């Protein structure tokens, strides 16, 4: 009976009525795109955390993922390409009482915004970043991204990508993020919990969402049908805990198979003072 609570809190209808800008719906995302799910999961997490939407600001840069804040009934800043985190720094530092949530994509965050990203992480601002990784520049029509796996096809890598990709979550962890998780969109409950944890965490929280891009990525990489691409994500991903177990105790064949797998799960939790906390302390000192 304990579980009843978690099932019963809200319904999707209430979420839609409470958080979505009705006049903007239906959203512009393509058929089979996972961005709608990311939006849905974020809203569930926000509802469960009970965030005050009058005090919550959503930011985004440019790209498919950056259109997400437009559908949420809250203050939002849809900024320039890659700069969302720099804008977010200004918002959070100027008014630390605001909850700041940033939606970004792989190109936005790791490509053009790479420098802003590592520095925002380094500063450990108390913000939650939901980075949607779809391995491609979707809005511009499917160009190769900094996260496109080697050998995969894009309009600007018609013979297969020859560049090694970035691992966004590893990058976030290395730069000093205090909460790092990666989940695929086909698992609803884990990302909802992770986003909740991210919102609770008083520091830089990074949640990477693996989201299928059917239009720009799938059809160039032998996943012409939506279900094929979603199934591919299911096959490719492996829980970080399982991954580690196999690495330690698995057979040679099992370990060999790990090479093609993408780890998912919560990778890192840490408690560190956030930048605005440090700044408040400095102000107190100077008084």
């Amino acid at each position, binding site marked *: *009976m304990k*579980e*009843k609570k978690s*099932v*019963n809190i809200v*319904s*999707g*209808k209430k979420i*839609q009525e409470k958080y*979505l800008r009705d006049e903007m*719906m*239906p*959203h512009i*995302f*393509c*058929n*089979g*795109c*996972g*961005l*709608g*799910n990311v939006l*849905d*999961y974020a809203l*569930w997490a926000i509802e469960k955390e009970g965030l005050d939407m009058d005090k919550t600001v959503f930011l985004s840069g440019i790209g498919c993922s950056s259109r997400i804040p437009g559908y949420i009934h809250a203050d939002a800043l849809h900024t320039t390409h890659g700069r969302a985190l720099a804008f977010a720094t200004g918002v959070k530092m100027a008014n630390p009482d605001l909850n700041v949530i940033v939606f970004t994509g792989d190109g936005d965050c790791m490509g053009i915004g790479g420098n802003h990203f590592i520095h925002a992480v380094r500063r450990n601002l108390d913000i939650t970043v939901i980075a949607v990784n779809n391995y491609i520049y979707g809005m511009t029509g499917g160009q190769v991204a900094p996260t496109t796996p080697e050998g995969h096809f894009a309009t600007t890598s018609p013979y297969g990508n020859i560049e090694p990709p970035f691992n966004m979550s590893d990058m976030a962890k290395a730069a000093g993020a205090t909460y790092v998780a990666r989940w695929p*969109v*086909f698992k*609803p*409950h884990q990302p909802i919990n992770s986003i909740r944890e991210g919102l609770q965490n008083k520091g830089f929280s990074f949640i990477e969402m693996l989201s299928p891009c059917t239009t720009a990525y799938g059809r160039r990489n032998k996943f012409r049908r*939506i*279900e094929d691409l*979603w199934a591919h994500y299911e096959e490719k991903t492996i829980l970080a805990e399982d991954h580690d177990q196999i690495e330690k105790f698995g057979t040679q064949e099992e370990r060999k198979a790990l090479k093609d797998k993408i780890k998912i799960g919560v990778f890192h939790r840490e408690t560190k003072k956030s930048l605005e906390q440090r700044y408040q302390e400095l102000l107190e000192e100077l008084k």
Partner: protein
Amino acid sequence: MIEVNEEYCKGCNLCILFCPRDALEESETLNKKGVHPPIEIDDRCNGCRLCELICPDFAIVVEEEDKKLTKKQQSKKCCV
């Protein structure tokens, strides 16, 4: 129990694919986008909300539980 907003549906069929109880199927109707939105097959849904969560287009809403159900049935539903 499952309410489908036909105008929002883009026809990805993920709900049908993901439903653990095979409680959804393509309907006969065509919406404005030219796709067949899903329709509930009677008496199969257990209210797990997976279709609602997995629908990328906010086209599915699972209505609150039927209050007529016995406590035993309710707890069964929730554990899925």
